[in-house]
């Protein structure tokens, strides 16, 4: 495997990222942070790209929105992808755009046939603009909405079948959604078609700051929990190794601390690969 476990790239870690000798290490960035015309941030990404594979993770395509992705946004994303030649491009099964406004979160929607048609149309538009497949990530869910006509796994599988997109499985989001909506995370993990999975995300979560709320929040501000590691082991044991990202977007620790988590993911993949050889 050329690419094993990677880290969300933080500019404060540039020097260590450039000099790390870890085999298989790769980096992911939020695409929107680099959809700029020039300057030091883009130059840092160019430098990192000379050494390591980069994945562009979008947080603003709004592919579940009834309003299609803005042409300007797609043009900028295409320009960045042409420049960086990323290993993967991904975004979320969610919407952010309404009436010209951008809600900087991954908003839910009833998974209906009509919604599937909309997401298929948007993913087709993105893939046509980028001339490459997109990986679509399952978001964290905070309440069960009325009106679902299909489950998340089925919705994503149909989306992949109709558009040719792949899946980015966020194991922490499955754990958080399972806790919040009251379903069994293991069952959800086991239902995912392994051949569709192009990437995996691991992150930390937190309890809602409102003490009256029972919810878990996808906060990306803490170490990965033991329960999420267990789900990850379960997934990898079944489908084999996949490029896996350690996500941390708040309370950023030292590079070495993130590398230690990254090395755990790598060890889990190596162990799984070993099992495959002996089977």
């Amino acid at each position, binding site marked *: 495997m050329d690419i094993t476990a990677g880290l969300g790239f933080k500019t404060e870690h540039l020097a260590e990222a450039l000099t790390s000798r870890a085999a298989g290490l790769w980096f992911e960035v939020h695409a929107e942070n680099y959809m700029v*015309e020039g300057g030091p941030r883009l130059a840092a990404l160019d430098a990192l790209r000379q050494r390591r594979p980069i994945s562009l993770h979008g947080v603003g395509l709004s592919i579940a929105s009834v309003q299609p992705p803005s042409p300007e946004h797609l043009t900028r994303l295409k320009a960045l992808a042409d420049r960086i030649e990323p290993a993967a491009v991904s975004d979320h099964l969610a919407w952010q755009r309404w009436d010209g406004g951008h809600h900087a979160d991954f908003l839910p929607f009833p998974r209906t046939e009509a919604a599937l048609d909309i997401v298929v149309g948007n993913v087709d538009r993105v893939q046509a603009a980028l001339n490459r497949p997109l990986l679509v990530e399952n978001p964290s869910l905070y309440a069960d909405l009325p009106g679902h006509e299909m489950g998340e796994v089925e919705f994503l599988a149909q989306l992949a079948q109709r558009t040719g997109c792949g899946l980015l499985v966020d194991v922490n989001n499955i754990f958080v959604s399972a806790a919040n909506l009251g379903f069994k995370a293991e069952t959800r993990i086991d239902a995912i078609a392994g051949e569709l999975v192009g990437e995996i995300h691991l992150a930390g979560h937190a309890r809602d700051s409102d003490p009256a709320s029972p919810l878990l929040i996808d906060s990306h501000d803490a170490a990965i929990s033991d329960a999420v590691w267990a789900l990850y082991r379960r997934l990898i044991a079944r489908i084999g190794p996949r490029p896996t990202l350690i996500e941390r977007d708040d309370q950023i620790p030292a590079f070495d601390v993130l590398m230690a988590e990254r090395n755990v993911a790598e060890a889990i993949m190596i162990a799984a690969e070993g099992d495959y050889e002996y089977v």
Partner: protein
Amino acid sequence: MNMSEPEAFQQAFALALAGEGTAGALFADPAIVRALAVHRNTSAKAAHDALAANFPVVRALVGDDSFAGCACAFIESHPPRDPRLCFYGEGLAAFIAEYAPFSQAPYLGDVAAIERRITETLFAPDAEPLDQAEFLDALDLDAPLILHPAVRFVAVASPAASIWLAHQPGAPSDALERLAWREEAALISRPGWSVQVAVIDRCALAFLTACQRGEGLGEAALAVTALDGVVSTVVASLISAGAFRAQPT
């Protein structure tokens, strides 16, 4: 025409997020109201964090809580429209200038105006800067010097650039006490890869303003001499700050 089901849902959810109504049947479920609060907090935090990253000195000057209050009011009246939150905050300087709780500190809007230009400079296009030797080689009094795409300059009524500089690492600890309270002009540029803020005098400001208007070097030089400035000194310091782009060859 009737709205489609996904459109009706997104409209109801977006209006509820904006605090403009949770009257529909959807929000009779307390679990959905709680989820709505999580989404509202998450997007407000993302917008706040973007402003905090782009206006660090304003935040240091007023403190985290006052900044959060101001950011919250700004986010409500000027919610993000671009998914690129790294650009968020256009209009914050004007908003702060009118923001009643900060009315005792009129320099805050000026500091915000400088920090907004720092963001613009940070992400502006790359271009080869003009260097001193090239300038002397190609001296043409009729041709204008072209401003570098990453250059911004601004004149403000308070010593906002000095205040900003006093908050940078390595600034003298008494920098704020020694502040002369007067109007100031600031040059924000990107020599090499780092953004630099400098206080400039009225001669440099006049020269840059003439260049921005597309006036030839000779005309721009006259603007400096009219203020009893030394043209060679002004031009040399602006060139070393990376204020101009290399002449097209």
